[in-house]
């Protein structure tokens, strides 16, 4: 019921027919934005430790709540978004536990997992560059 109402509001706000509806943007390294007609949101992920990160999700609406029905539909959509991300969090935690334990030695990206592969390779490239530069600096320092 709530999503049906939300879809009606999205159409009235011009979201449903918008060319950017359902477009997904991923801006390296940590910003993601989904142009969902009913609940467009951004997700910014910030590393806080080698094995931990903090994500901030912001849902964007057009205008203030101007009716009880719209307020209800938005609350439901927001709570749904929290539930979906909570489910993702459980999977991510399990994956991190596997990597941290050493049980998982490799990450297998499938053909269609283009974004994950690109993000991983881009980060890895920067880490390797940093490590090489640090090693070179140590050599230069040791030679003095």
């Amino acid at each position: 019921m709530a999503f049906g109402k939300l879809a009606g509001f999205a159409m009235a706000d011009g979201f449903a027919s918008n060319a950017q509806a359902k477009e997904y943007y991923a801006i390296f390294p940590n910003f993601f934005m989904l142009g969902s007609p009913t609940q467009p949101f951004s997700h910014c992920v910030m590393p806080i430790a080698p094995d931990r990160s903090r994500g901030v999700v912001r849902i964007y609406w057009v205008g203030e709540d101007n009716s009880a029905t719209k307020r209800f539909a938005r609350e439901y959509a927001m709570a749904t978004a929290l539930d979906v991300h909570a489910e993702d969090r459980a999977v991510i935690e399990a994956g991190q536990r596997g990597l941290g334990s050493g049980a998982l030695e490799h990450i297998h990206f499938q053909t269609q997992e283009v974004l994950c592969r690109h993000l991983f390779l881009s980060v890895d490239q920067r880490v390797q560059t940093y490590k090489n530069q640090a090693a070179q600096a140590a050599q230069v320092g040791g030679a003095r």
Partner: protein
Amino acid sequence: MTVLTSLLPEGFDALEPYAESWAVASAAGRAQRRLLSTESERVAFYDAAKELVQRALTQLDQKPLMQLDEREHRLMNLMLGFAHVALAVEVQRDDEPRHAEVRKHMRIVRASADIGA
């Protein structure tokens, strides 16, 4: 003489037993209320409210949100609480306790309903 004071607008007597505990003022508070609830609490509130949600929203839609009186405002918050509980009862079902363990680490900072509430 005993004077009974309704917490909710006329016509929502069936929801009176849930008004104090489920009509929480903020989105974060409503999420927390769901988090701390038992299954029997959730199901009892859900069963009592599900057939009244449409009527409540239709009635509340007759006024701008800023002009709702105290009882109408409480009914609004009760319906917002129902939005959270409906997800537990209709979607998460038996998985709600496990899902709650993950969800408790995720915090709502502010929702549109908190503005001007």
